[in-house]
């Protein structure tokens, strides 16, 4: 039987603290990069998954750990949003306060729309990019265009990452029932129209 401390204090804190690193351990000499959730949201040159972008806002992909659902992000500003969560969570893609407080998958595919809050029915990636641009302007930073105007299409993410999934059971946003053109839907979402 696995033994887990029966925590009467009912808190996620506590338990056995991690062992400290040996005093003579080699320091990590690699400068940390900023962790962000998607294409076009990098604040610095070289800060995307490939490290090859030459300007803020032009990165190809997230540096935060890929995950596929609400509550699975590692830390502050590493959660996506859109498919679950309350208005506050859904209005802060890539800007969540803490670990496990993101409300959806990372990276954010172009087809994803918010299901609640002020951005309901509109593109999540476009909102993330808007917040990013506001942050860059406030910081007096130049930034370039994202590789895709409205974020990475799901098909592109699958081709790059090998697989990609965001949780939820309502079906594929980019499919067709024979009576619509998914490309038109994608264009409308990209133009900022409400779904």
């Amino acid at each position, binding site marked *: 039987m696995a033994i887990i401390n029966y925590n009467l204090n009912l808190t996620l804190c506590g338990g056995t603290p991690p062992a400290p690193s040996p005093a003579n351990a080699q320091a990590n000499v690699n400068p940390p990069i900023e962790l962000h959730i998607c294409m076009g949201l990098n604040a610095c040159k070289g800060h995307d998954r490939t490290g090859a972008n030459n300007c803020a806002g032009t990165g190809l992909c997230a540096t935060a750990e890929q995950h596929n659902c609400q*509550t699975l992000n590692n830390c502050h500003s590493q959660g996506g949003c859109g498919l679950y969560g309350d208005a506050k969570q859904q209005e802060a893609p890539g800007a969540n306060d803490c670990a496990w407080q993101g409300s959806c998958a990372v990276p954010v595919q172009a087809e994803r729309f918010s299901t*609640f809050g002020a951005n309901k029915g509109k593109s999540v990636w476009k909102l993330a990019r808007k917040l990013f641009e506001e942050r860059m302007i406030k910081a007096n930073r130049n930034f370039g265009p994202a590789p895709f105007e409205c974020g990475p299409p799901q098909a592109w993410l699958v081709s790059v990452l090998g697989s990609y999934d965001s949780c939820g059971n*309502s079906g594929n946003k980019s499919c067709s029932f024979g009576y619509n053109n998914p490309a038109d839907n994608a264009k409308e979402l990209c133009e900022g129209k409400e779904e």
Partner: protein
Amino acid sequence: MLQNFFAAESEVTPENIGEAIQQAIEIEIATIPVYLYTYYSIIRSPDQDAISGSLTQELVTVGKTPAEASAIALDLSAQIMVFANKAGALIMSVAIEEMLHMALSSNLKQALAGLPELVGKSPSVWPAYLPGHIPPFPIDRAGLSLNQLMTFLKIESPKPLPVRKQLEAPIPYKTIGLFYQMIIKCIEDYDLPYDLDSPQLLPNKGYYVQSNIDTIYYDRDHKPRYTNADDSGDLLYVKDRESAIHAINCIVEQGEGNPDAPGLNPDGSVDCGAIVPPDYDDPAREELSHFEKFAQVYCEYQTLTNRFNNLGIGVIDINEYFVVNVPTNPSTSKYPADIAAVSTLLNAVYTYIFVMVENCYKQSGSTQYEIFMFGIHKSMIFILNSLCGDIMQLSYLDPEDDTVYAAAPTFEDYPFGLVSSPKSQLVDLYYAAYPDGNYLEQRILDLPDVPLQYAGKF
């Protein structure tokens, strides 16, 4: 195990209001495994090409030209795609609100009578019966069908169920709404003390959100449609008479609709006529009551089945296109060992969610928030949902009827023992089901470690 509370004709009084509210909590809990079971039987995104292809072939066989057959098949297959997804979205939208009702009733009990009891309160015998309902009617865990939808309509009926005329002594019937009215009357008639110190599940903390991707479906043009309205209801702090009545009215209006909403027809059939204003449960009239949502699914199911049956290609129940062949009222004890291990883990996660909710009524502030957001949300949205998907990939031969079924989540309460913490038992069950670990391992290990609130629950 559902309890027998007081006699049906009893009044709610200050002496028994705690029992009455606990009964209300157990009524809400009893609906959750039923709705979830049917929900998971639905393939929300069936294979349209397969549906369309087989339909085309059958229509050509009965004399349609290929072009005619193809056009009809495209139309009907698109309708199946929309309906399957819509049925799933509507059932999930109701299930989510049942969880809200459980929380609102729990807030009510916390304010008026002390800690709500949630663990071990799911029905243990199937078919189940709503506690205290007159007349009783059987409730199965079953796949989506017209029969199952009729059961849903009975659960949410705003009017007394029609009584068969041949009965010599018609049984008086009380709806869930009338039951809640008894509680309201007690609250109105007596100056009850309200506990303002004990924690409740409060609004504006991200605990409850009425819309998510699972409550949405796409119409024929693949535009998203939202089944729950933004103004349909929320958690509420029960602190006085007014807030207590407000909480109850929210529960009743979401479930059955407004007091003058129509119910089943006198002969027990479903009224598929136009939706009328009382069928809505929100001020903006954007969200239908549970009863009307199920009526809509029932009527569309019937209409679509009739369309297929008028094609001359044989008698068809449309559920064969998008409903998994799950058993009715399965139990983990009858599953083969490999499936039983996954089912037991799933039941333990299901039960641990109730354990965590109970703990939220003992904790406040950041501790409550962490239990809820990192434990309950993660368990419901990711772990439980993932396990439901995983178990339904498994199948087994039932020797009793010599039929192969897809294994399905049984949503049975897991009897956590008292020797170790529920979480440590959960971890053991995880490794029993997945000895080599899998994508859920870290998520299980990350769950908060909370105790049973009541010793000897099982």
